[in-house]
């Protein structure tokens, strides 16, 4: 077996913990875990798991308000959005709220900050808690002032009566007022009177980042802090045969060299001393490697032969009706990486039998459980505190760096140990977005309508987050008593993993969709922004254009013909109009492309129109212009949504045009930006426009992942428009385009 393949026993045993935590973050109102009781099943969002109001909000005697969220700021603006929500419902200024994020000692357990669910899960909980807290404060004031609650109003930290009598929140809250279970209903501030929700309130975290304040886990400086570096094997499964650690111990500043089986690390007083020692340790290490990677030139052929569990996404007849025109196509997507600009980092401190880890992990609770297993400490002796990292776009090396900080901290009790992964370590060892392949078949009737659709997609898992299991941490694989990686499990629909968005959102009478889930992981993989939706939407929206071409229909009209959902139709129409789709002027080597999707088929709607330009001599494609229309329900922070969508478009354009992880039979070859280039300023588009369709009262959907798949398809469609060639393999690199268009 190749790569990181779970043992047969592990596959048969299954990965229970993984499913639980994943389901919690994916589902709604599932009453599981401590704290649930009668009536808890009716509570929405994260309240279901954490129903007490004071788990979400505390008001001190002096009126200071602290809000708590189990979600983490990843640079997506969630802190700001949650502060807006809390301040709106508590009728205070945003500055009056201090928000504590993801800390196993202080905040609710909200699983992972992932799946674009933060506003939906945490925002909903905080909103209800804050609205009900306001009601409780008013009720307490009513009792004290002996007036009816209707004659009181909350304003700016006080409950105020007609005539001016007022009592501060701090005085009213006391120790117990908020220590009650939330109810399922709340009296929200009327949308017409919103001061904050729906406004582009400036990001609370940006000023520090722009002026040099401490903002990231990389900026943590604790008293007595020292610096750690690890030495990772040159390839998966390599074994350390020898390492002259004695000479490393004598290097300037070195405090400790850690060796445990094939796990190697070094701790030094100063950071550069740790870097020098790391290089020396790497040079002194001798490894025994076992080539375990697939042949890159035949990757997809090989993947197609691996055992897979066939999951029915939609059961239907796959036979194309007679008398129809049948179109088929096959699509592929290479392994791609998160490529966080700041390699992963964590700080660990072990003293008096307790371990604290500051980490940018997306899930401090599952990480805590995994580190507890890794270090054999009781979970209540392990505390994981979220501190921001650079954008991670999913499960990257954050949890692994946290594990390294834990292990190195244990090796040097009493001193905080800061572990920084190097660029090449992040590039080589992070879990990638899985390579995927799919096949689409559809039939058009005489009216040029799609009457049958058969789609089959194959992928490795999109979820190997720690999930409470040490075996999902790289450090666990290399120690003397290694912990094998647990067998991955498919993420259930409607969220899905490799099958996310495998179901087209169009009205098609006969529909069959199958997901071939491969447990094997030839390369280490996990969740990358959008998960399977990037590839599936790329395939589906490219295929829709291929069908439109066969039907000789305009791509926008063809989509509208098959979309019944009113909100979907509006997103499509708005994007097309804003782009001036029907008035597009033809220019040589320029093309336009369109795409639409509803994220997870249940969340945000997005339609996207792009213009590309093509350099015929080289095959190089540049995104020139993009126009998106996004409907994510009630828009808490419109500017934040625009920022996320613009960013998603540019990042996905980079994925689509340039990116694929390079490897040979033994090693990952994409180890730095020279061997894995991403978009730079000269290739950035001329203009990106995002129209936010606001729907107050319609609930919150996240926007963070909505743009990825549509961008890929829109670009492919625009290339087809410009050059008459259909590229179906991601990345659509210059060489592929050149080969397709010829000389």
């Amino acid at each position, binding site marked *: 077996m190749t790569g990181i393949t779970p043992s047969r026993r592990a596959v048969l045993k299954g990965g229970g913990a993984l499913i639980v935590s994943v389901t919690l973050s994916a589902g709604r109102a599932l009453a599981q875990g401590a704290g649930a009781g009668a009536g808890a099943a009716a509570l929405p969002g994260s309240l279901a798991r954490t129903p007490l109001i004071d788990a979400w909000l505390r008001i001190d005697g002096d009126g200071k308000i602290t809000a708590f969220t189990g979600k983490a700021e990843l*640079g997506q603006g969630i802190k700001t959005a949650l502060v807006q929500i809390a301040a709106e419902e508590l009728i205070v200024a945003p500055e009056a709220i201090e928000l504590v994020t993801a800390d196993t000692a202080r905040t609710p357990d909200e699983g992972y900050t992932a799946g674009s669910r933060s506003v939906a899960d945490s925002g909903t909980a905080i909103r209800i808690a804050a609205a009900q807290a306001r009601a409780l404060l008013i009720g307490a004031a009513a009792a004290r002032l002996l007036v009816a609650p209707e004659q009181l109003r909350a304003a700016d930290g006080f409950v105020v009566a007609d005539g001016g009598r007022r009592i501060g929140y701090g005085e009213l809250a006391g120790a117990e007022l908020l220590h009650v279970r939330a109810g399922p209903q709340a009296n929200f501030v009327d949308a017409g009177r919103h001061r904050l929700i729906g406004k582009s309130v400036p990001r609370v975290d940006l000023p520090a980042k*722009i*002026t*040099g304040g401490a903002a*990231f886990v990389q900026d943590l400086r604790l008293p007595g802090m020292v610096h750690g570096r690890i030495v990772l094997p040159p390839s998966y499964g390599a074994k350390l045969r020898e390492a002259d650690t004695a000479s490393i111990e004598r290097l300037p500043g070195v405090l400790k060299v850690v060796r445990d089986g094939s796990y190697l690390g070094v701790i030094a007083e100063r950071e*550069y001393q740790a870097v020098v020692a790391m290089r020396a340790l790497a040079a002194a290490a001798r490894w025994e490697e076992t080539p375990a990677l697939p042949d890159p030139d035949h990757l997809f052929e090989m993947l197609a032969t691996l055992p897979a569990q066939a999951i029915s996404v939609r059961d239907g007849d796959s036979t194309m009706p007679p008398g129809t025109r049948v179109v088929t196509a096959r699509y592929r997507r290479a392994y791609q990486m998160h490529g966080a600009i700041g390699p992963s980092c964590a700080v660990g401190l072990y003293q008096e039998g307790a371990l604290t880890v500051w980490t940018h992990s997306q899930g401090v609770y599952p990480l805590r459980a995994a580190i507890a297993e890794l270090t054999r400490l009781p979970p209540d002796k392990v505390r994981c505190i979220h501190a921001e990292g650079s954008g991670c776009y999913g499960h990257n090396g954050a949890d692994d760096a946290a594990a390294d900080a834990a292990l190195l901290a244990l090796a040097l009790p009493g001193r905080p140990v800061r572990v920084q992964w190097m660029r090449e370590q992040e590039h080589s060892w992070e879990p990638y977005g899985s390579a995927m392949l799919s096949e689409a078949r559809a039939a058009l009737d005489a009216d040029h309508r799609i009457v049958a659709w058969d789609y089959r997609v194959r992928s490795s898992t999109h979820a190997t987050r720690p999930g409470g299991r040490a075996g999902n941490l790289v450090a666990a694989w290399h120690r003397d008593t290694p912990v094998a990686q647990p067998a991955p499990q498919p993420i259930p629909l409607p969220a899905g993993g490799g099958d996310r968005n495998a179901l087209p959102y169009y009205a098609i009478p006969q529909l069959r969709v199958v997901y071939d889930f491969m447990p094997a992981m030839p390369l280490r993989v996990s969740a990358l922004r959008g998960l399977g939706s990037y590839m599936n939407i790329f395939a589906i929206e490219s295929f829709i254009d291929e069908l439109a071409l066969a039907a000789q229909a305009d791509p926008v009209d063809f989509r509208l013909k098959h979309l019944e959902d009113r909100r979907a139709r509006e997103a499509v129409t708005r994007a097309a109009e804003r782009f001036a789709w029907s008035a597009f002027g033809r220019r040589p080597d320029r093309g336009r492309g369109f795409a639409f999707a509803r994220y997870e088929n249940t969340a945000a709607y997005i339609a996207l129109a792009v213009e590309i330009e093509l350099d015929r001599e080289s095959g190089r494609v540049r995104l020139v212009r993009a126009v998106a229309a996004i409907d994510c329900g009630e828009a808490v922070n419109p500017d934040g949504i625009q920022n996320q969508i*613009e960013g998603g478009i540019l990042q996905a354009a980079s994925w689509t045009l340039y990116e694929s992880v390079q490897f040979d039979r033994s090693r990952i070859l994409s180890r730095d930006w020279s061997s894995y280039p991403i978009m730079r*300023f000269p290739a950035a588009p001329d203009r990106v426009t995002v129209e936010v369709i606001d729907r107050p009262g319609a609930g919150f959907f996240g926007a963070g992942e909505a743009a990825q798949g549509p961008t890929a398809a829109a670009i492919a469609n625009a290339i087809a428009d410009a050059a008459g060639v259909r590229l179906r393999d991601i990345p659509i690199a210059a060489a592929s385009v050149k080969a397709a268009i010829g000389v």
Partner: protein
Amino acid sequence: MITLSVNGRAHRLDIDPATPLLYALRGELGLNGAKFGCGLGQCGACTVIVGGEPVFSCLVPVASLQDRPITTLEGLAAHGKPGALQQAFIAEEAAQCGYCTSGMIMRAQALLERNPAPSDAEIRTAMAPNLCRCGTHMRILRAIRRAGEALQKALPPADRQPDR
């Protein structure tokens, strides 16, 4: 003993002369602006200004910095107020995760000091050494243009650059 002049102040440091400036700034001087992104001169997250030139602080050893003025993000503020570029970045909300931001601002600062009214193409070329993984390029370009215009307006009319 090496003396570094950072943001107008002198610091005497007893460190390995081969230490890249980045580690001296972050470790010895506790400054947060310049960040570790790659250590290979490929991403620009560590960009600072030395003698008016934007440099990768991860690849400049302190031994070469005696008597050369170093400016970091922290040095752009004047009288407690953020500098023009910083204000422009805040106004345009030109950041998502914010990790690349310091390097972006420093490279843009060096550009505007050299070329106060750059064209869009000149900005793009000047900023090419700096990577942004979040895709905030459009806002960053807008913020740089905005800062350039603000700096121009602050000049007496005779000193302003013509529009291009």
